[in-house]
């Protein structure tokens, strides 16, 4: 199926409205914050919710086909010939839109209670609404420049929200780091756009995909590689991942929405969206698949060594996105998108559940100072437990189906090494997730908060709603292999064209790989049980945790020294160079060379001082006189040249 006709052209007011409603919410909350007060949260939730309803109503438009066209395409305007902008809602962007507006709605609604009493309450909802708008811009654009605009805007929304409590120096530093690293990604995407425009003379997905067959494979590789720099930065892949754990400085709903469910998966979207480029370029696939797998493993390893509940979840997010990137990299687009879809629910649930705990314990985030919480907060416990079962891939839960599809995809598309890495990662995932659960919720309480204050219904209800999809949506949509509802939904999107790459039947079946992975998950669970939940471990839990803190290998404490390496290789040299240029080269070398001129200037200064009578009118006269002299003089000088 040719891809150059991406959507059925037409007028889709619903799509435009669902795109712009959150922007309206942002502007209203921003402009009328003081007047709206607590209404800001309800207004923002209502508009994001309305956007979700419109997305649901657009289902038919998004899945319509006409000839080779799939979905709805609407023109918005043009800068120049070739620079045409428009919206595109097809199955891929529809799935993202559902998560952005659906999970987005639940999280914005949850924030009504979570952010209660904050001094900048309305501003928070303005930023959240703006983020939803920016993210929709990203996934609804029908061209790479529009996508890059959304890409940059989600970056700045993320910056605002990480640094939301901007009186904390740590939040300010985290926001700065996230922003600058993301601009590195933007620069990569810009370079991809230069390559695209120089060779195709257009920015639209459709134009480029239809021309892709005629491009040399080296060129396509470089386009993919440059685009992938954007994905690496935005989706926290190695080595540009270090901003994500720091981003946990933002309020917890922000971590749930932006740094777990949606924005950080933009790299997955980018690769899936550009599938026609990747599908025919094995080198690009290996690059992306490898980076994804290494990220999945690294994130999981670092997740085992954290004590801050949100940082554990952040590394888990990094690891899970590594899985997704690996999947879309090797060509298992449906699997990668499925993991994005299910992950959005259970990771949002994990963060919101952690938010319930943090909120109740007066902003305590250190799991060492928790313990025994299942008695204090049974609701939060059940929320966390179901989400942990989902993320570790216990059969029946949603994560089982999506993770299976991803891991099996490695074999399906001929990458046994990646399969081994991802299966191992699944085991480590089980270990660090149950470690979190056991330390925080089992045993005796080790903190000093007497009365955990219960969150209100506005916080509990959204979390409860999330439990349903993270438990059941996998079984509902993903079971059934080739005939699952999911596969049929994406049949036209990632259909016959993408299958052009090697789709060899692997040596072992999906059932066997599921078994291997589940065995590793059980091992991870068992180690976590033995270390943190067995009666022996429970007895002196406090001391054991202290011992573990002291005995943590330096390489894990320093997070594999990635931050230090970036400082050493890039940040400090740039600062040193700047200091050298600014305080040595400028004043001494350049100005030294023109010192004679300055000397002359001083001499001229003494001469002119005699004219400085302080009368401004006299200056004006001298000015006009002098200018006339110059003109006359040079007019004659020109004559002499002749």
């Amino acid at each position, binding site marked *: 199926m040719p891809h150059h006709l991406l959507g059925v052209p037409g007028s889709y007011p619903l799509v435009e409205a669902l795109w712009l409603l959150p922007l309206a919410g942002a502007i209203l909350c921003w402009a009328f914050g003081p007047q709206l007060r607590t209404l800001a949260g309800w207004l923002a939730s209502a508009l994001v919710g309305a956007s979700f309803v419109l997305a649901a109503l657009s289902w038919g438009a998004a899945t319509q086909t006409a000839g080779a066209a799939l979905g709805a395409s609407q023109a918005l305007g043009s800068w120049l010939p070739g620079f045409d902008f428009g919206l595109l809602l097809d199955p891929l962007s529809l799935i993202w839109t559902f998560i952005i507006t659906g999970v987005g709605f639940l999280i914005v609604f949850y924030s009504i209670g979570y952010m209660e009493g904050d001094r900048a309450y309305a501003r928070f909802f303005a930023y959240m609404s703006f983020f939803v708008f920016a993210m929709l811009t990203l996934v609804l654009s029908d061209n790479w420049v529009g996508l890059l*605009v959304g890409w940059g805007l989600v970056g700045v929304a993320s910056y605002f929200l990480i640094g939301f409590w901007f*009186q904390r120096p740590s939040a300010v530093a985290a926001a*700065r780091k996230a922003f600058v690293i993301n601009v590195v990604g933007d620069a990569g995407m810009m370079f991809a756009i230069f390559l695209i425009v120089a060779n195709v003379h257009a920015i639209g997905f459709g134009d480029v995909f239809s021309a892709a067959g005629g491009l040399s494979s080296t060129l396509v590789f470089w386009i993919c590689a440059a685009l992938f720099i954007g994905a690496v930065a935005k989706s926290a892949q190695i080595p540009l991942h270090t901003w994500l754990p720091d981003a946990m400085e933002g309020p917890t709903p922000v971590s749930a929405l932006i740094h777990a469910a949606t924005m950080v998966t933009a790299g997955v979207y980018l690769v899936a969206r550009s599938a026609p480029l990747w599908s025919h370029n094995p080198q690009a696939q290996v690059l992306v698949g490898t980076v994804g797998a290494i990220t999945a493993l690294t994130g999981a390893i670092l997740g085992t060594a954290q004590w801050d509940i949100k940082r554990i979840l952040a590394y888990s997010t990094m690891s899970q996105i590594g899985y997704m990137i690996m999947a879309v990299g090797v060509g298992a687009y449906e699997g990668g998108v499925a993991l994005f879809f299910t992950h959005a629910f259970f990771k949002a649930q994990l963060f919101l559940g952690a938010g319930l705990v943090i909120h109740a314990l007066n902003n305590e985030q250190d799991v060492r100072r928790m313990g025994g919480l299942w008695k204090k907060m049974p609701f939060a416990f059940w929320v966390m437990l179901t989400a942990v079962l989902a993320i570790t891939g216990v059969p029946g839960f949603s994560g089982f189906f999506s993770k299976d599809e991803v891991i099996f995809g490695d074999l399906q598309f001929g990458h046994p090494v990646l399969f081994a890495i991802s299966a191992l990662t699944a085991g480590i995932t089980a270990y660090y997730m149950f470690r979190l659960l056991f330390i925080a919720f089992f045993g005796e309480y080790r903190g000093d908060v007497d009365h955990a204050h219960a969150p209100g219904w506005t916080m509990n209800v959204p979390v409860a709603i999330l439990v349903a999809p993270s438990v059941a949506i996998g079984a509902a949509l993903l079971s059934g292999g080739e005939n699952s509802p999911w596969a049929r939904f994406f049949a036209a999107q990632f259909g016959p064209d993408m299958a052009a790459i090697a789709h060899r039947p692997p040596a072992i079946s999906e059932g066997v790989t599921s078994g291997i992975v589940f065995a590793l998950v059980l091992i991870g669970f068992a180690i976590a049980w033995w270390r943190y939940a067995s009666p022996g471990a429970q007895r002196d839990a406090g001391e054991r945790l202290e011992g573990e803190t002291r005995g943590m290998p330096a390489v894990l404490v320093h997070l594999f020294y990635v931050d230090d390496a970036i400082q050493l290789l890039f940040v400090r040299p740039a*600062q040193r160079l700047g*200091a050298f240029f600014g305080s040595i080269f400028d004043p001494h070398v350049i100005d030294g060379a023109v010192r004679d001129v300055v000397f002359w200037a001083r001499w001229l200064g003494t001469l002119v001082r005699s004219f400085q009578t302080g009368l401004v009118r006299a200056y004006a006269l001298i000015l006009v006189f002098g200018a006339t002299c110059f*003109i006359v003089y040079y007019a004659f000088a*020109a004559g002499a040249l002749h």
Partner: protein
Amino acid sequence: MALVPITILLPLVVGALLYALPRAPLDGVYPEPSRRARGDGWLARVIGVATAVATFAMLVAERDAQWSVRWLSRPFTAAFHFGATPVAFWIALLLALCTACAIATTRVARTRDFVALLLMLEGTMLGLFLARDLLVFALFWDLMLLPVFFGLLNWGEHPATAWRYFIYNFAGGLTLLLATAAFGVIYGSTDVIGRTGAPLVGAWAPWIFAGFAFAFLVKTPIWPLHTWMPPTYSGLPPPMVAVVSAVQSKAGLYGLLAIALPLLPNYVHQYALPLMVLAAVSLIYGAVVALVQNDAKRVVAYSSLSHLGLIVIAIASLNPLAIKGAIVYIVAHGLFSAALFMVLGYVEEREDTRSLLRLGGLGWKNPRLAGALCIAALAALGLPGLAGFVGELVILIGVYQAGYTWPVVVALIAIILASAYLIRLYQDVMNGPEVEDLPVRADLSWVEGLAVAPLLFALVALGVDPAPLLRL
């Protein structure tokens, strides 16, 4: 048609009148001037804003009009010929807008004299950008230095800065005049801007190009001719530096676009590589120096060195798309650098310091001030959706299309550095814990807000729809 010379003369005449008319005795010293002095300043500002707005209206009203009076017929023909070229039209609008915004928020000692100087600056620069004759262009080139010179001398931080500014730029003016005179003699006429004529060739042509190029590169500035610029920008009072960085720095770029490109294209082509190397050095040099400056205005000054290097790269690439992008970026840079300097001026007026080491945490008590600085900084670092991004993107697409890869990579590195130093600038002023010994002042006033709002609005509007600028 008659409006064109009036557009130029009006600010000059009003400025001169503001100087010449009798004034209230200057009892009381800023910031606590006497009542009469304050009234005098208010009146001057109202008159000044009205004048600038009037020039804006006249520019819009007679967009394509021209006006000409014969000046010289020997040794070459020259005319007082004015009229906006498409590029000059936008720069002139930018100039009128920035002048109005700057005058609206002028708060310096001897306000009336300062407003008069700003109007003179507007008038001389309008003369420069509307000139269709090279000799007139060169004349106004020198004249526009004088208001800034006097601004630095009387309101600046150190008189040496004034002289440094003047000598550097006047040296450029000198080579410009020499080159213009030689050009006129060889070409027969200097009434050439905006006309399609044969390019200049011959033994003298490289020297003439060199004369133009020196003047333009000093004015922009480009490394290593930039050392007059940081002290000038940090020394000038905010309203004037807003106009100078926004518009006067574009005189050289406009010269390259409107004079060097059409009249001496062979030499731009021939010297493309050295031009690009110098511009690329400026890009990185300005950016890394901006990274470590502790004076807020110097951060923006060095960022200008970096950003304007990009435009020189665009022009040197001779690619039509890059040049379209350059025009967008000229306007965008004017808007965001004016906004940055104005808002940093507000900060300095409130806190009596512009040291990033001293400032901090202002955002809490001054959310509107923080918002204004934030939008300006984001536009400057090329946030997609704002005008600066459009300029950068289109320029670099064009430069890459023209076959230059390394300047594109250098520019992308500079873009990354820009995000680092502009975010640092914003955060060090507005974020972090509140500094205890800094005075707490009121948030952005209505006048201050209205003065900076048009600039920020234009950045958003042109970022969303740059088509009017791209389709020149």
